[in-house]
């Protein structure tokens, strides 16, 4: 295996690791905000289920990243282009991490891959249908998460509104939140680790180590889940604060509803091979819980800042990757 391929694989795993600490907040913010688990235990809980996700999900999202963003028949995805795409995604992630913005690593990666490929061969190499599907769910995933969280909240309220032992009920919801947080972490691991698998699959194909029709090898699956599992304990505490308490205040029942809704959304998108932002999804779900009360319960200033970061992610990563591809080509 040549050096370029090894470098990209290491970078992809490093990206996965940063994804773990960048997005750890999403998995555990509500559990920490509702004080169901201490931050340390919550991180360990999320890390375990991020790793265990390989037992639950297939590799549909990985295939989408490797073959549905840039047309594989045009032979544009060389090792250098994939490297530049990763530089774009990682660069954007670091910028938003520094700013404390919960943006999407998935969309950074898609933007990065597209930007590097376009820099190499023009807009014609981008797969319109693949990008349309991904773009559609940039909007739909938070909306679906929001609606599901709202309906789950309403069903819970309707089912338990006569219960007088509120403390006991809260204890039940706190236990339930452990399960919903685990489910959300599974969905997160399934969705996000597969992005790395997609990159490694693409570079192995580009390097001639795999046939273009090949599935993701098991060692790639295991190494991607290990990287995201190890990255989670490194935690992004700035983002935990934004997600868990600044958007809206949560009680255990609200956390349970938000995580269940987000987990259901991620389970669906992972099985349909759609790379979505776990950040978008859980934010939508948290807003949905807040909206059961009134819209003023949602802190829209923070939500607007988050939305702005979402809108900027694909163009931002695209631009960094576009520049990186030119640098790589000059350097070669």
């Amino acid at each position: 295996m040549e050096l370029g391929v090894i470098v990209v694989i290491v970078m992809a795993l490093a990206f996965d690791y940063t994804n773990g600490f960048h997005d750890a907040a999403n998995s555990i913010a509500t559990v920490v905000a509702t004080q169901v688990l201490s931050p340390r235990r919550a991180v360990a809980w999320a890390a375990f289920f991020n790793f265990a996700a390989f037992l639950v999900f297939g590799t549909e999202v990985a295939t989408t990243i490797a073959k549905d963003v840039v047309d594989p028949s045009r032979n544009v995805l060389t090792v250098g282009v994939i490297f530049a795409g990763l530089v774009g995604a990682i660069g954007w992630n670091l910028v938003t991490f520094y700013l404390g913005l919960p943006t999407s690593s998935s969309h950074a990666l898609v933007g990065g891959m597209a930007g590097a490929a376009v820099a190499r061969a023009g807009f014609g190499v981008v797969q319109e249908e693949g990008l349309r599907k991904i773009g559609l769910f940039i909007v739909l995933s938070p909306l679906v998460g929001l609606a599901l969280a709202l309906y789950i909240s309403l069903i819970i309220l309707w089912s338990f509104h006569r219960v007088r032992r509120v403390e006991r009920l809260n204890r039940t919801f706190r236990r339930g939140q452990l399960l919903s947080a685990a489910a959300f972490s599974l969905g997160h691991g399934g969705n996000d680790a597969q992005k790395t698998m997609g990159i490694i699959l693409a570079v192995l194909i580009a390097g001639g180590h795999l046939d273009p029709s090949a599935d993701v090898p098991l060692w790639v699956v295991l190494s991607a889940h290990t990287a995201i599992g190890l990255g989670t304990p490194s935690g992004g505490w700035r983002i935990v604060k934004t997600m868990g308490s600044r958007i809206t205040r949560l009680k255990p029942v609200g956390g349970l509803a938000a995580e269940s809704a987000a987990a259901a959304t991620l389970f669906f998108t992972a099985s349909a091979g759609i790379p979505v932002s776990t950040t978008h999804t859980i934010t939508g779900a948290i807003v949905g819980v807040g909206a059961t009360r009134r819209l003023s319960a949602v802190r829209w200033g923070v939500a607007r800042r988050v939305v702005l970061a979402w809108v900027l992610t694909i163009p931002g990563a695209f631009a960094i990757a576009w520049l990186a591809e030119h640098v790589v080509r000059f350097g070669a």
Partner: protein
Amino acid sequence: MNDRRIWFFLVAAVASGALTPLAPDQIRWVPVATSVAYAVLTILVALDMASRRGHPGHGGGPTPEE
């Protein structure tokens, strides 16, 4: 009393519905279902507002935040 959720849910219903033609055939049901879900929420909030107008003293039931 004007509940701004009506407008939020209405916009979400229209936005989800408007995305339907962009969806690939096998997942076209997702934006449709999302649009319907928001339309139902819009109607529920409208009914809630109407019932509150009829009973000014009614403050609503518990919420997940209470």
